[in-house]
């Protein structure tokens, strides 16, 4: 059993079952949409309806009462699918109403008739209805940023050339002016309004048996859907423009950094400096080339996709075919593999660690001396701008901020400087060589010590995370003045006042038996007194076993491990009988730091 509706088609009354009605409705709806923008579109629909009525009558005669889906299908097969109706239209471009038709289906094509290279600029100009000179100038200007070339090539690949007359006419849009944009919006809105109206009419036509309320609600939502679709259509265009804009900005700034060199986010490295750096790290150009090549491959695919997607959203070109997508993915993968393997090769060059220590006696005549830092252009480069650069270029040489200085008490009876060179390499030997081939500044005269807080690498050697660490061993009783700027040289210097490095400069520091003490600070005397009292208590535990070297002794419940420094562990008497001791060893570099 089926519900039947009564319809009026081309002046005839038909009984039609519900399924057939829906099918017929869909068919005519599609046609109506298709011809909604063609002048005389309503007439076409009326003609088609009349013809359908004839065909139904021919088919069913007077005997059959109800039109069913089979009838509808048969009639549709005679008339053709909705898209068949357009076949004829596409190839006839003579009439005036073509303009109104094509301005809606405007599509970008390459204008191969007026091309200079690929017809991209000419096609774009035709699309925007402007003189191609402007688009060509634009592309020409963009070529310099590097972006233009990429964009041009992508457009060349992506945008089809205009071959048929229809395509050539489709290519020519209306001028992009504010009033045209307004018109476009209005016409789109009108189309939405029309379809809403149609729905209203349909709802009225509907048989009373059907539930009108639910019908109306669904129509209403369909109308809303149409409006949302319209909003999205515009949103996508805007997003597309945004995509292109972002990529354009990114590439333009990249290009600027590449060729001009630019202060970007406080870091003042230019591309040439970065490439110099890469060359300093890699001892053959192979690695350098591999890195740049791998990187280019890696970013090519995503960049292409972003640009393509932008173009797609703005101009509505075809989606990218699978082959190209796969190809791009493959290229990115290869880029990643190249980068990965080079990174591994590079890391191999940093595998081993080595250091060596040199000691230098300082012939300081005075008991009080100055500590200074070399303040030249390179120093200012590193320290004046608040950036975190650790390397810089000057006069074709690269400099690294990797020199630190500590101050300790001398136990040898004279003032001396110990310098530890640290470096990495593919082997211990290589690492040692890398650690040694560094240039830096130490100037010593009777009352002045001057250090650079940077080093440079001698020619033929490479950057391998080298570090230089000076330790100034001061005689007890001597005083050093830390001049301004030394805060960039000293590192974690232990002192009784417990000052941070930055607070230590511009003060006099005296080496006492207990450590470094500020000579011109108010609380120093107090601190020293406190320390002496503490120390007095300490001596209860210290049994005077400091003369032996590198020995472990157990005496009166204490395990005493002695090397250059002493470590004391309290131990209970009853545990002394137990042979299993858990001995934790605290290693501290300073004799003054004895933990109990």
């Amino acid at each position: 059993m089926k519900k039947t509706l009564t319809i009026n088609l081309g002046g005839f009354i038909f009984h039609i079952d519900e399924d057939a009605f829906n099918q017929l409705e869909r068919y005519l709806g599609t046609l109506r949409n298709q011809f909604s923008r063609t002048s005389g579109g309503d007439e076409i629909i009326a003609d088609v309806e009349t013809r359908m009525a004839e065909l139904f009558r021919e088919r069913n005669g007077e005997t059959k009462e109800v039109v069913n889906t089979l009838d509808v299908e048969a009639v549709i097969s005679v008339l053709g699918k909705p898209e068949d109706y357009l076949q004829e239209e596409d190839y006839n471009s003579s009439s005036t109403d073509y303009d109104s038709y094509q301005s809606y289906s405007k599509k970008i094509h390459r204008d191969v008739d007026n091309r200079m290279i690929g017809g991209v600029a000419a096609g774009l100009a035709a699309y925007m209805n402007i003189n191609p000179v402007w688009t060509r100038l634009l592309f020409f200007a963009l070529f310099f940023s590097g972006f233009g070339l990429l964009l041009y090539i992508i457009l060349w690949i992506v945008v089809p050339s205009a071959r048929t007359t229809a395509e050539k006419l489709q290519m020519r849009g209306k001028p992009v002016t504010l009033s045209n944009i307004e018109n476009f919006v209005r016409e789109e809105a009108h189309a939405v309004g029309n379809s809403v109206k149609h729905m209203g009419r349909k709802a009225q036509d509907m048989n009373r048996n059907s539930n009108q309320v639910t019908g109306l609600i669904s129509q209403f939502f369909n109308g809303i859907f149409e409006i949302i679709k319209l909003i999205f259509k515009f949103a996508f265009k805007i997003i597309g423009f945004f995509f292109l804009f972002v990529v354009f900005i990114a590439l333009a700034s990249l290009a600027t950094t590449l060729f001009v060199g630019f202060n970007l986010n406080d870091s003042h490295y230019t591309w040439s400096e970065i490439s110099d750096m890469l060359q300093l790290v890699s001892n053959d150009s192979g690695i350098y080339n591999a890195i740049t090549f791998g990187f280019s491959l890696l970013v090519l695919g995503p960049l292409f996709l972003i640009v393509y997607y932008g173009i797609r959203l703005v101009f509505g070109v075809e989606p990218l075919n699978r082959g190209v997508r796969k190809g791009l993915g493959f290229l990115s993968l290869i880029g990643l593999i190249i980068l990965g393997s080079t990174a591994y090769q590079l890391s191999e060059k940093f595998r081993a660690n080595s250091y060596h220590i040199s000691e230098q006696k300082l012939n300081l005549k005075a008991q009080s001396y100055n500590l200074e830092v070399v303040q030249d252009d390179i120093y200012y480069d590193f320290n004046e701008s608040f950036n975190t650069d650790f390397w810089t270029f000057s006069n074709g040489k690269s400099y690294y901020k990797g020199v630190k200085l500590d101050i300790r008490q001398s136990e040898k009876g004279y003032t001396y400087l110990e310098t530890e060179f640290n470096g990495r390499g593919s082997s211990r030997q290589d690492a040692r060589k890398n650690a040694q081939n560094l240039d830096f500044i130490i100037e010593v005269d009777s009352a002045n010590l001057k250090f650079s807080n940077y080093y440079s690498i001698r020619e033929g050697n490479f950057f391998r995370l080298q570090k230089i660490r000076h330790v100034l061993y001061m005689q007890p009783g001597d005083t050093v003045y830390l001049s301004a700027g030394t805060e960039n040289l000293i590192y974690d210097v232990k002192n009784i006042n417990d000052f941070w490095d930055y607070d230590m400069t511009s003060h006099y520091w005296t080496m006492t038996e207990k450590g470094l003490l500020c000579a011109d600070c108010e609380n120093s005397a107090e601190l020293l007194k406190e320390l002496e009292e503490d120390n007095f208590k300490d001596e209860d535990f210290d049994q005077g076993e400091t003369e032996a070297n590198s020995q472990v002794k157990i005496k009166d419940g204490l395990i005493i491990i002695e090397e250059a420094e002493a470590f004391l562990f309290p131990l209970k008497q009853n545990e002394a009988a137990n042979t299993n001791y858990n001995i934790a060893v605290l290693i501290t570099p300073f004799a003054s730091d004895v933990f109990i």
Partner: protein
Amino acid sequence: MNLENAKAQMRKGVLELCILNMLNHRDAYASEIIGELKKAELIVVEGTLYPLLTRLKNSGILAYRWEESSAGPPRKYYTLTEIGKAALTELLKSWENLKEAVNQSIQNEIKH
């Protein structure tokens, strides 16, 4: 090459000519025109014809009048206007030329 498509293109080119020629002899309504064209195998589906007729009417080549019918509602009878007659002459001339040229070209190729 899509053979069906090529054939369709050829048919399309002469479709207008045939319609105008037919209406030059007598006025007809849509179903009659379709019947004739189908007989001549010039159209496959009827749908293609309606947009064409509307366009020809819009450009002033065709006009129509409503005529009562014995079998139902009034029918739309298409007729050729003066512009249409001129257009037909033009089209026939170019058809003759085209026929000539195509035959000539085919003949030449056969001789070679």
